[in-house]
Every structure is written in C-alpha cells, then in structure tokens.
C-alpha cells in the first residue's frame, strides 16, 4: 500500500511539472474551447490546441441543434467522454482531434440507438463467463458498459491524481486510459480492456465515418488521412504506379445522382 501512496505523490508532482507543457491542467478547460456551440465559454486554455476547428462560427452556433445529448443524462459523464476521446485521438499537426471532429456527440447518438442497446446481438441468458475463445458473454449493453466505464474513469482520476479527469493534463489522462486498456481497472461484468476497445473503436468511427452520422465533421477526418470517401469509380487510376490524391466525396453527394 505504501508503494501506491508513493506513486501517487510522484504522480502529483509529475502533474504539476508537465501541466505547464501541455497546457490547462485544471479548470474545466479541455471542453470549453472545442465544442464551439456556445454552451461552454471559449476563453479557457485548451489542451493540445490553440484554435477552434469546429468551424469557428460561434456566432451562428444556434444552428447546431444536433449538439445536445440523447444518451448521457449527466453533464459530468459527457464531459469525461469528451476528454477521453480527445485523449485517444488528440488534435495535432495532422489536423483536428476527436472533439472538433464531432466524436463525442457521435458516440452519444450511437449509444442511444441499436448499437448502444445491443438490439441486434443475442442477449438471452443464461449468462456465463466462458473461455476467452467464446467471445463477449456479459448481459451488459454497450450503453451500460460506457456509463460504467466513464464513472470508473471519474473515480480513478480522483484516486490517482486527486483531480477530476477533465482537469488533468494530457500525460495524466493517457496514464489513466492506458490502465483501462491494460485491463488493470476493476469493472463489473466486463473487463476494462473491453471498455477501452469499445471506446477506441467508437472514437475512430466518429473520426472517420461518413459525415451523415455527425462525426468526421467537414470530412476533416478523411482529409487528414488522405482518404477520399465514397468515390464512385477508381477505374481509370487503379492500375497506376503513383499514389493518387483526390477530393473528398460524401454520401450526401450521391443523393441526387441516381
């Protein structure tokens, strides 16, 4: 136990020293700058970013009626989701991170639908843990796993760093998410690594899905990856030796073309 305590102290020191480098350790700052929808103040420090990439049109932010919560009832839980996804997929020189791509609201909506309630999965009992080779065997839905996982992130932050997750610097947030990834965090009915895999998968989905789902805003995820989206034909370029750069096409562009 004394080991753990020592570790905690050093972590706090670490937090103090690295906080300055990554910006905004404390102050609910992570979320405010990114969302750009007017509900959070914009003048706070932003972790990992100095600009609002969500379109910069805060003045007309009332247009964005879709940016409200369907699944997460608690603001605090959603804020942690926001910070966790940005930790997994941060803004960098390549381009926007999870927040600016619309990932948190994308996940909120996915959890409110079929996927979140495992509507197309076999959820009848009896339930048994089974062997590793037998796949997912828990009665928990993805929505329930997310809620439990998010709350465990909240607890784990306070336990390790004495601060809310959203107040932590990036290195501290990474440490916590990595502990989930490694399966080190106790969860009920599911391993923390499975929760991490779901969170990571959903984050990547939100970053790279067709923009019709609310993620991959402005096709910026695709632009970053050099991926052109739903191009009708590569017939004329498929056999060429050189790499071909192309403009992005979304499903919306196909709506009237047939």
């Amino acid at each position, binding site marked *: 136990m004394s080991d753990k305590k020592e570790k905690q102290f050093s972590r706090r020191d670490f937090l103090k020293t690295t906080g300055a480098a990554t910006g905004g350790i404390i102050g609910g700052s992570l979320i405010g700058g990114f969302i750009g929808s007017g509900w959070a103040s914009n003048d706070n420090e932003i972790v990992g970013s100095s600009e609002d990439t969500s379109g910069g049109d805060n003045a007309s932010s009332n247009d964005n009626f879709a940016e409200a919560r369907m699944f997460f009832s608690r603001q605090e839980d959603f804020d942690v989701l926001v910070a966790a996804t940005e930790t997994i997929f941060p803004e960098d020189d*390549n381009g926007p991170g999870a927040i600016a791509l619309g990932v948190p609201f994308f996940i909120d909506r996915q959890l409110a639908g079929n996927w979140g309630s495992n*509507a197309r999965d076999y959820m009848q009992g009896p339930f048994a843990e089974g062997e590793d080779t037998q796949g997912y065997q828990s009665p928990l839905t993805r929505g329930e796993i997310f809620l439990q996982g998010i709350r465990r992130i909240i607890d784990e932050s306070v336990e390790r760093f004495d601060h809310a997750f959203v107040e932590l610097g990036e290195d501290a947030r990474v440490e916590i998410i990595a502990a989930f990834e490694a399966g080190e965090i106790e969860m009920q009915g599911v391993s923390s690594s499975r929760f991490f895999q779901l969170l990571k998968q959903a984050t990547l989905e939100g970053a790279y*899905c067709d923009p019709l789902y609310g993620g991959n805003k402005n096709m910026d995820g695709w632009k970053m990856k*050099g991926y052109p989206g739903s191009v009708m034909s590569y017939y004329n370029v498929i056999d060429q030796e050189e790499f071909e750069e192309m403009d992005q096409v979304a499903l919306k562009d*196909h709506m009237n073309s047939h």
Partner: protein
Amino acid sequence: MVEVLDKVDVVTVGVGWTGGIVASELAKAGYNVVGLERGRHQKQEDFLQTKDELRFDSRYDLLQNLSKETLTFRNNPDMTALPMREYGAFHLGTGLGGAGVHWSGVTWRFLPYDFEIRSQTIDRYGEEKIPEDMTLQDWGITYDELEPYYDKFEKTAGISGEENPFGGPRSNPYPTPPMKDTAALRLFRDTTEEMGYQPFMAPSANLSEQYTNPDGQTINQCQFCSFCSRYGCDFGAKSDPINTVIPTAEETGNYELRTSANVTEIIHEDGEVTGVRYVDLNTGREYEQPAETVALTSYVLNNVRLLLQSGLGQPYDPEEETGVIGKNYCYQVEFSGRAFFDKQYNMHMGAGALGMAIDDFNGDNFDHSDLDFLHGGWISLRQGGRTPISSNPVPSGTPGFGREFKEQSIYNFYRMLSVGTQGASLPNRYNYLDLDPTYTDEFGNPLLRMTFDFHEQDRNLATFLAERIENILEEMGGQDISVNKELGNFDVEPYQSTHNTGGVIIGDDPETSAVNSYLQMWDHDNLFVIGASAFAHNGGYNPTGTVGALAYRATEGMIEFLDNGGGQLVTAKNKSKLT
C-alpha cells in the same frame, strides 16, 4: 392453425447462391418452384447508398440479426457451449441473395487432389500420414466429373480470371479477362516470380468487363470502388444471386418468391419428405408448403440445424463415431502478415476479389514427405479496398491510442501491405455440429452448437504458411514485418472468414456420408441438401466456386429425379448397411 398450401414441384429453404441456382435451373426446366427466404426482398437499388463503412462494415447492416438467431460455440466437448452473442469469426447472410450479395467474389475451383484426398494421400505417403483423429474422406466425385459444373457456374457469374498453373484441366478459359493489376499487386507478382513461384490474378466475380451470361443477365464492369466485402454492389458489377440466377428464375414465370418466410421444419413421413413448415414473419402465421422435392439451401449452418431439428438423418456422435449429420465440420486456417513500406500505395481502391495469388503451397502442389501436416493454402496479396475506420495500421511498439497512435496510423494508412493465406481445414473427429441443449432462437427452437478447435494439423500448416508469408514480405522489401506463427485455439470473436463447411457431407458410402454426389440425401430421396455443408473437408480456397458447381450438379439430379418420378440417383457403396 397451420395453413396447408397447394403442392409445388420444388421448394427451396433460403434464397442465396444455392437457392437461386436451384430456382433458375428447375424453373427453366418447367417445374414450378417456390423460394422461401427469411430475410427481406432486395435489389440493386437498395445499395445506392452502399458506400457507408459505419453502416455495413462496423454495424453489419446486411447480416443476420443475432438477437433472433445465432449459434453456440465451444472448442471441445468438455466445455459448455455459449452463444456467439455478437459478430464474429464469420458473417451470416440474410435477405434475398443471402451472403452472396455481400460476398467478396473470389471464385476458385478446388484442386483434383481435394476430391480424392484420402486415396491420393495414402498412395503418395502411406496411410500412416493421416493422423488418427483426422476423419479424412474422398468426396465420391472427381474433379473431372465436377468440371462441367464449375464451367457452368463460372459462366453464370462471368468470372474474370487467369489460369491457375496448378489447377485441374479446364474445358474453357475464364469467361472474362483477369482484373486490372495495381502497384501493390505488381510488387507481389514480381517478388514471387523472382522467388521462383508462379503468380497469377485471383479469379474474381467482380468483373473486368461488362458481361452477359448464358441466361441473358448482364453484370457490369467493376469500378474498383472498394465497397465490396460486406456491401451490396451499387453498380451491379459483382455477380450475385440477385443479378443472375434469381431474375433468370423470375423470367420463366415458374418461380414464386416469398420473403420474410422463416422455415422451422422439414416435414417427412416414412422416409419421404412431404414439404416444409414456415412462419410468415410479417404476420406470425404458420404455413405448410407441400412439395415433390425440397432443396435445403439455407447455408451450411442452418442446413445442419434444420435436418437435426426435423429428425432427418442420423446425428453424428464423436464418441461412437457413428451417424453423419454434423460430421466433418471444417473451417479455414485464415490469417495474414503485414509489413510497412516507404511508398504510398492506393490501397483504398480495390475490389473484393482483386488479388495476386500463388498456389505453389496449396493442396499437394508441393512435397509433404518431410512435413508434419497435409494440404496447404493459396497465398496472396489482396486489394479489397482499405477503409479508414477499420484500418489503422501502426508499427509494432506504437501505443494503442493517443498522439503517436494517431500520427502513425495516418502516416501508414497507405504504406502498409499485407500478404495472407486461406489454409485448408481438414476434418477432426471432435469438430462437429449438433443442437444446443440450452439456448434457443426466437421461436424457441434449439440453436446449433458448434464444437471446433484447431489441431496439430492446422497449427503445423499455419506455421509453415506463416514462414512463406514472412519470406515474401521480406523479399518485397517490407519493414517491421509481423506474422503470427502460432495459430492458437480457434476464437469465435475476431473475423476470419465465412467459410464454414461440412455437416451434411458428400460421399459414396451412406455409412460415412449424408448425401450422394448429386447432394441427394441417401435416406430421403426427395431431399437435396445444397451448399458447402456437403464439403467433406475445406480446401485451401474460398468455397463458393465449389458450392456453385455442386449446386449445378444437384439441379441436374433434381431434374432427373422429377422427370423419372423419383429414386436414388446413385448406387451406394455399402448399400447393405443402409437401414
């Protein structure tokens, strides 16, 4: 109350590739056919918004809804089987056209060796080469006998290909030329050629040019858009049942299709099948459809399940080694290795069946005298079209998330190439299918139970093929090569392939097989069980070319059966043992 409908000549249980082939051939021959398909009706127009990775690849929109029906799985008889609650090592089709709508389209012929695998293995290496628990059997049909039906299926689908230097003799070249090659495919071709192997373009049901098949159905030229495996084609450029055999059947006027019709039982009396029972999923009403002949075409897994559920055939017992239904369930030893390259390849472009192959390490194309396994697999570089959610390749040592992960996954999206194999899966006494004692489907009927694991044979084969793959990636100039050489236990969670086979196997002896070479049940003359369920083992290839060939042969048998007013089409070896 079950409503009894008017009797028809043929009813098919399920309408995918096999149900569609039965419909087209029997309806053309003038017989009236009813197709019962549990899923929705679908046509090309349903796929105009198909280029949607989240919906079709991440959320499996076209696949069987597992909340209604799944199967249970365990590695061996000592374990308790548990339901496959979500996808999944394999992806089950539903809806008109079945998995044929969202397949990739690689369309192989098995090797002559496959059909006579037991006798040829013994001839060449002696009986002791076959491990004790390997229930290896000849198929009761040779490659040469099946060749005309391969030819027929390839013509129906318009397959684009180039002759396999190791393949059996062909009566005709492929109906359309091979697909275009790509920078990555050329790298694989040049490298393997230099290594002394014989590369060639994989046979593809995504067509190199527009093609009209002998039934008058037209399939378009593939645009290499990449939305292929797990997607329906928006351009009508992938041969599938809904652009070939199903419209052919409909045009005869002899075909009636009923979708949302879920078959729950095959009805039989005194050794004769009289029809099927099904539930109309829109109304919940139950119907009985009487028929002269029944074609069970509901994919491997439900073919086995419906037989067992209906009390048809003798269930296989692995302890006593008696019975046949559920026996020789096989799969595929499928995996790949990857490496990174400096150059960016257009890997987001592609088609489901676009690939450069070598067959030097398949079947008995190489000497197994000093090897501790039988058979092999085709090795290839495939370019199905990489999509950004599912593909985030990072070099080893990269963290699983965060800055470095993001940087690397973006940088390497076009710089990673993978070389893979589909290894043969040979039968094992303890790999089989039966009914689960605990879990049920939406109607309260028992789920199918799969007992399957990889054994010595599979592990040794995997290690051998992994080493070949590693060599090829090295010669290609790849960096940070990663190939898993340890197959481990079969795990039902990560996707491997929808190449389930066996359970209602073909043969010449009713003691050891369930169907004859026309896929007619030995002990129920008017029941034909069609699909990869008939495979006595799975070869080192995708199965559907062989499924299509067997299906065409079965339809010839069905027509003969109906024309002649019944009877067994094949004289059984060991007929005395038939009870």
